[in-house]
Structures are given as structure tokens and as C-alpha cells.
């Protein structure tokens, strides 16, 4: 599968060989694309999965609980069987979407121009850094993003420090808290500025509670101290506007490392260079129902499109992107979209941004605030009236969890409007709250 000398033209070129890229390439091959090229910067495929050595991947895709490297290796094996060219240590410098070509530089190819029928963007995301948080204080060594620390521990075999404070309760931060404890590092606490965790509940249970690591909600790091290396951080509770409470006790915690798990940002510099329009909320491209961006023939999937919570959904979305990309490359167009999808009540964003009412669709979205007992409603917004098309009851929804709503063609037949709005509406509490489940 690994190539050093790519062809001059491919049906589908996929940028990034992480979970999204691998699945997109597989999707493209399965949909009939004969020549598929995967390009990745790293010396091996798998992307970030190679450092995510914890379990929790693949429940939906493989119906078993795998680690990141296992999930990656299964996809790599499937793709190897299907056949695709994999170009490693290589970087897409630029593209010429009108000519349908990208300019690649890399370890093995030097500089090469490759033409494509379709291009799939699957570059993933990067971690938010200290700069974006504006934490005052000094700028010593020892402030790392959780992902960098994960790479240090799991692949390089070194430790980022001895006494660690974690800011942000994103899943990577929670996973790293446990990982460091297993390696004998002292994890002093996880601090979250929001009143709820931005990670999954099960990770709070198995990564923090199992090891008695305290989680401090509505609290943030307000100052970093230490000249050469982190010596302490100052933490302070925050008010509802997420501002440090004036007069509240500011506690100094002696530590040598501050890990940040404060969010992920899609890596869309190449997308922008190609001219793709971005959504200001997702910070990923605006896409249609075939996951094509505003640039003809350029598709996007995975964390470059919007940050996902589960790799299974990344792979699922990317398989579809790969299939659509192959169809486009092979000259099998679908009817154009005619309905705009917009976020409504308690919904931060919806992907895709448009849909076509003539086939089954799946829309993905996230809620803005946690809710219990809610109903997802898809509302057709016409000039004259609003009409609920589909509604689905859910027990709860968290911003950390990506939501999915399937729309069948029968549902969509009811739409007589240009706009479909997705709401998540709270339901009144039941009179007699009886949890689900029965006696055994």
C-alpha cells in the first residue's frame, strides 16, 4: 500500500491518513474509485489513534471495545486488502481546485503535482493552547496540551513532569489523568471552568473517580508561576459569566506541569487556501449533504469538518464522504440539495448545512447546554408556517456528546420549505420519576 512514487492522477486524493482519511479512502474504493491516494505528514498511518492507547474505540464499528491503535490497524488492514496508495511523510503545500490538482512535498516524493477527480479533506484538528486562554503569569517550560503529553508518554516513553495539574475536563485530559497515575505521576486535580465536564461521564468515572483524582467544576487556572519551569498554578472559582469571582480565595497549587485539555480546533488552513467557506461555529467547512465543501470536488469529513466525540462517528462520516467523493469523480452526480439546515433552540451547530429531500439523510449536531428529558424536533420553516417533521425523545443531552438525527425519505417528503431547523426542547419532568430498568 505504501508508495514512494504516486501516479500523476487519482480518482480520489485523501488528505490525512488518520481515522477519517483511512475510512474515506475505504469508502471511495468501495464505491468504485479505482485509484485512491492517501497523503499523510507522519511516517505511519493512523493519525492520533496511534497515541490513544486506551480502550473505548470501535463499539459501533466493530461491536467490541478496542484501543486506538487496534482501531487504526483494522482499518489499515481493510484498506490494504482493498488497495490504495499511501504516501507518508508528505505534506500538501497547496492546491489548484480549478485544475483539480494538489502540490505535494515529502520525504519520498520530493515535490510532486498530483491531479484528482475528487479531493477529501481529512486533516483532523489541533488542540487549543494557552495563548487562546489568556492565562497571565510567567511562560515557563511545563505547560503542555494534553495531546502532546499523551504522545510523550505513550510513544516516546518519557514523562512530562512529576506533579501535574490539568486544566479542562475534555476527554483527552481525563484520559491523561489516569494514564499519568498509571505511570506513577502525581495528578493533583482537574479544573473545569464550566459548571459541567466537557468530557464523557464514563471517563470521569473510570479515569478520575477510580483514582480519587478531584474534579473541580466552575474553577479555572488564573495564573502560572515559575521562572524556568512551572512551579505553581493559581486556581480560582468563577461566576456564571466564567469570570474569576472577586474576593474568592485564590489557591496556589505547587506543581511542575500544567496540562491543557481545553478544546479542539479543526485544522482548516489548507481548506481555506483552497477557497472553502467555513462555518464560524464548527470552524470547519460548510458542506452539502454529500459532504462536499463550497469548492466543487472538494469534500471534508472527520474532525476537520467538526470535532467529533467518537471515532466511530468519524469513520462513519468519512466512509460516506469517501463514497460521495468517488461518485463525484466517476461522474455520477446526485440531485442538488434544496433545503438549508439551521441550528435552533439549544443547538450550537448542525452538519451538513444543506440536505436534499429525495433520499435518507443524517444530520449531526451538538447541544449548547446540558439538558435532561428533551425532544429533538426537526421543524420545516416555511414562509407561512412552521411544521414539525420528526421528533425524537431523548433522556439527556450534553455538549460533549455529538447528537445524530436520521431523516428518512418519508420524513423529508413532508418538507415544503427551504429551511429545516433542529431544536432540542426540554420536556416537563414526569410526575412519578421511575428510572428505566427492572428488578432482577
Amino acid at each position, binding site marked *: 500500500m505504501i508508495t514512494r512514487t504516486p501516479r500523476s492522477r487519482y480518482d480520489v486524493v485523501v488528505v490525512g491518513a488518520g481515522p477519517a482519511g483511512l475510512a474515506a479512502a475505504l469508502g471511495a474504493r468501495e464505491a468504485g474509485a479505482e485509484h485512491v491516494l492517501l497523503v499523510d*505528514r507522519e511516517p505511519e498511518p493512523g493519525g492520533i489513534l496511534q497515541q490513544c492507547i486506551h480502550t473505548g474505540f470501535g463499539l459501533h464499528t466493530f461491536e467490541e471495545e478496542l484501543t486506538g491503535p487496534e482501531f487504526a490497524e483494522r482499518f489499515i488492514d481493510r484498506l490494504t486488502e482493498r488497495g490504495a496508495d499511501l504516501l507518508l*511523510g508528505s*505534506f500538501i*503545500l*497547496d492546491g489548484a481546485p480549478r485544475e483539480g490538482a494538489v*502540490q505535494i*512535498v*515529502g*520525504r519520498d*516524493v*520530493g*515535490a510532486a503535482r498530483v491531479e484528482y477527480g475528487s479531493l477529501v479533506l481529512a486533516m483532523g484538528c*489541533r*488542540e487549543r*493552547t*494557552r*495563548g*487562546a486562554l*489568556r492565562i*497571565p*503569569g*510567567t*511562560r*515557563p*517550560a*511545563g505547560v503542555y*496540551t494534553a*495531546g*502532546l503529553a499523551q*504522545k*510523550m508518554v505513550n510513544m*516516546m*516513553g*518519557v*514523562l*512530562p*513532569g*512529576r506533579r501535574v495539574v490539568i486544566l479542562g475536563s475534555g476527554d483527552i485530559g481525563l484520559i491523561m489523568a489516569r494514564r499519568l497515575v498509571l*505511570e*506513577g*505521576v502525581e495528578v493533583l486535580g482537574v479544573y473545569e471552568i464550566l459548571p459541567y465536564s466537557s468530557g464523557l461521564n464514563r471517563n470521569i468515572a473510570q479515569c478520575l473517580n477510580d483514582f480519587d483524582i478531584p474534579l473541580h467544576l466552575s474553577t479555572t487556572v*488564573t*495564573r502560572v*508561576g515559575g*521562572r*524556568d*519551569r512551572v512551579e505553581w498554578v493559581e486556581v480560582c472559582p468563577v461566576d456564571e459569566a466564567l469570570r474569576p469571582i472577586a474576593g474568592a480565595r485564590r489557591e496556589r497549587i505547587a506543581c511542575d506541569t500544567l496540562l491543557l485539555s481545553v478544546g479542539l480546533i479543526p485544522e482548516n*488552513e489548507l481548506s481555506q487556501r483552497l477557497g472553502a467557506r467555513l462555518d464560524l461555529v464548527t470552524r470547519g467547512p460548510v458542506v452539502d449533504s454529500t459532504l462536499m465543501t463550497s469548492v466543487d470536488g472538494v469534500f471534508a469529513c472527520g474532525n476537520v469538518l467538526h470535532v467529533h466525540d467518537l471515532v466511530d462517528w468519524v469513520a462513519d462520516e468519512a466512509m460516506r464522504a469517501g463514497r460521495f467523493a468517488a461518485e463525484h469523480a466517476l461522474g455520477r452526480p446526485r440531485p442538488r440539495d434544496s433545503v438549508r439546515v439551521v441550528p435552533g433552540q439549544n443547538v450550537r451547530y448542525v452538519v451538513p448545512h444543506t440536505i436534499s429531500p429525495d433520499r435518507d439523510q443524517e444530520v449531526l449536531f451538538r447541544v449548547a447546554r446540558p439538558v435532561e428529558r428533551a425532544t429533538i424536533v426537526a421543524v420545516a420553516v416555511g414562509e407561512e408556517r412552521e411544521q414539525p417533521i420528526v421528533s425524537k425523545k431523548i433522556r439527556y443531552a450534553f455538549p460533549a456528546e455529538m447528537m445524530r438525527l436520521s431523516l428518512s425519505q418519508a420524513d423529508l417528503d413532508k418538507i415544503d420549505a427551504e429551511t429545516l431547523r433542529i431544536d432540542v426542547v426540554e420536556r416537563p419532568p414526569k410526575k412519578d420519576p421511575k428510572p428505566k430498568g427492572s428488578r432482577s
Partner: protein
Amino acid sequence: MLYDAAIIGGGVIGCAIARELSRYAVRVVLIEKECEVGFGTSKSNSGIIHAGHHAPPETLKGQLVVEGNRAFPQLAEELGFGFKQVGEIVVARNADELPALEALKARGEAKGVPGLELWDRERLLREEPNLSPTVAGGLFAPTAGVINPYECCFGLIQNARMNGVELLVESPVLGIDRRDGFLSIKTPRQLLHARFVINAAGVHAAKIAAMVGLTDFTIQPRKGEEYMLDKRMKGVVRRIIFPVPAATTKGTLVIPTFDGTIMVGPTAEDVDEHDISTTDAGARSVFDFVRTLVPSLHPRDTIAEFAGLRAVSDSNDFIIGPTAVPGFINVAGIQSPGLTAAPAIGRYVRDILKDEGLTLVERDDFEPRVRPIPRFSALSMEEKRARIAADPASAHIVCRCEEVTESEVVEAIDQGARTLDGLKFRVRAGMGRCQGGFCTWRCMELLSERLGLPIEAITKRGGGSWLVIPRLDADPNEEASR
């Protein structure tokens, strides 16, 4: 061995003096306490090359700044660092401040600052439409510019070393002894003898002077906090925007940096010499102030912040000259516009040394140019192809955000980068949007390989700024299971 001159302090001043002396057939050593040059004040400042009209003509700084400004275009060209002559505007925020502009203009013209123009409100807002609509007028100075100050430092020392200057890093001066006709400098690892000792120790200059018994001046570190804004603010001003100056500083500025981002600052606060922290209060004062000049600036766009220390002498002027101790020359109290004045200070110190009896014979093999590390990201696609064909390591992108290649990183290490910060400030690896999240590890590996050090010995910026520690089970008695 006896050096003709030992320079204490590898900031931009020490480096400029070293480079100036490297034109002559003399033995010169530069002694720096940090791991690399330029890691103190010279790294953390506004990066402005002043036109020269702010400082009063009767002061030494007022005299050296204009000459320094004139030297920069050639210096930048020879040393291969970027210099953009963007110009500056002193903005009168109301009619009361207008007379101050005229006074500044007269002062500047008397000192020979070229091209000064008074702009009325209409002209000012046409040229800089994002200024507050309430401004009253401005004084434009076309010769002011911006650089990345650390690049200037690296260029100076590299050129000085090419021409024979020795550089000792991680060598804090512990004491200086007066001997017969020379001075001896003690560091943790060396004992160095020199006919002349040049004290360019920045905020530590008074401490160094005290080592030879000189206590005739003090240095007060004055902290300045600076805030870098997101690229989306690029172009909000095209020239450096000054307020009408206050007594203690030139005020808080809006600076279009060499890299095209907007920086606001600095604050001015007297602190002790270890305080390089940014503060909530500092951020507030900076933004409250600059919003009176450019209302669209907002703290939410901050992407990075830092603080640096000015070395403010009790005379509030540069202190440059021989002392009561034979052979000991002070170059102290170099606060703003020290960066601009640096090339002129180099020549000024050279003349002092000549007056003090050092024979300076120009070398005929002096090479004024350094070959800068070619920036891959700045090349056209054609040039990139050619470069990769000539040097395959140029096809390995180490830092994806700034598009820095492995060959750039390796060359920076070969030119003296020993730390992550050294790489960042030389070739921008880790300076982009991910702030090193992706390339830190590769940079550490390359430093480790090229310097022959274990990965755990690599630091952020020397001293105690360690990055990683070995695993706790790094145990020689591990068993083999396969």
C-alpha cells in the same frame, strides 16, 4: 590567554559591540549567562526601530538613536533579518495635544530625522481609517520600522563569530578581579583575562559594576507587558501608532509587527529583576489605553502575551563610557530606544576603546554578510521545487503551521540554537497556531541528535527549563520476555 576585550552580556547591545569589534584584528570574547544570546530583554520588547525624534537631543540616547535608525537598512540587509520601514504616527487624541506634535516635529528636525509630516485629522483618518474618529491629528515619521529583535541579535552574533569573536554561553559572571593591566572574569567554568571589560549586562549591569567596586549608578528593571492579537486583526493599522508621550515612557502603542500581526503594549511598571509575568491588571491597562487610539482592539483577540524588562538607569539616560576602574567600560541603562541605537552604540564603544588605547586595525578579511537560513515558506512553488531537488531535507516539513523544514531546523541548530525557544525564534518552529503542539517532539529529537544530548537534557530555554523526565521505571534490570 589575554583577550583584548571581554563583553559581558549577549543582548542586542553586547552582540552589536561584538560585531563592530569583529571588523578589527582584536581578540574578543562575549560572555552570556543564558543558554543562548538574546534571551533577556532583547527577545521581549516591541521590536521598533524608532525614527529618532522622541528622545531629547541633549541626551546620549537622543544622539545615538538617529544614527542607529540610519544604520538599520544596511544592517538588516547584511545580516539577513527582516526590517519593514512601516513608519510611525504620533497621534494627538484631542486638540490639546496638537502643540506637542509640533514640538516633537521641531525636535526631530533639529536632530535630522527625515520626512516628518504633520497630518490633519482628515489625512490621518484616510491613512489609518481604524483610528478613533475623535483623533485630532498626527505626526508621521516615515523612517520608523519594525523588526523581530531576536533575529537581529542572532544575526549580529553569528556574523561576529564568523569573524572570530568567541561566544561563551551559560556563563554567568561570578566575580571580576583587577589585575595589573588587565581584569580577570570568573564564571563557573572559566577564568578569563581581558584588557578591557565591557559591561553590557542589561538589567544586571549595576551588579556587574559593583564587582569592580563601582557603585555610581543603579538599574531599575521596568517591566513591559505586550499582547499579540489574532491574525484577523492584521492590517487594522499599517503604521506604528504612538500616543503623545507621557513623562516616563513613550506610552502604550499599537504595533504592526514584522510578521504582520498586531501587538499592543507595553506597560511600564518598576519591578524586581525576576518578574517577567503578565498580569490581569497589565492587560486591562493596555487594552483600556489602546482602545482610545483604535477602538476595535479587544482582549478577546489575544493569542499570546509576554513581558520583558527595561534596564532603566537612575539618570534615565544611557550610561556609556570608561570608569574609574581602568579597562572597565560601562554600557548600561540601555532602555528604549536601545534596540534602534544598538549599531550606533557599537561604533561609540569602538571609539571609546580606541581612545582608551586599544589598537584597532581593520581586518581585510572581514565578512559583513551572513547567509541567512532560507525560509522555505517564503519561496515560490518553483523555488520550492528547486530547493527540494538540491536538498531533500527541505521536503520534510517539521512545523506544519509555519511550514518550517527539517533543513531549516538543522541549520538553526548548527548556527547555535540549543533550545526549543532558540529554534522558535530562529526559524519560527512552534511559533504558529498550534504553539508547538505538533512539532515540539520532532524539534526535541533533532536537538538531541545534532547536539548529542539525551532527549531529557533538552530544555525550553536553558537553565532549569527542563521539558521531560525519564520514566519512573527507567531501570537497568529489566527482564526480557521475548
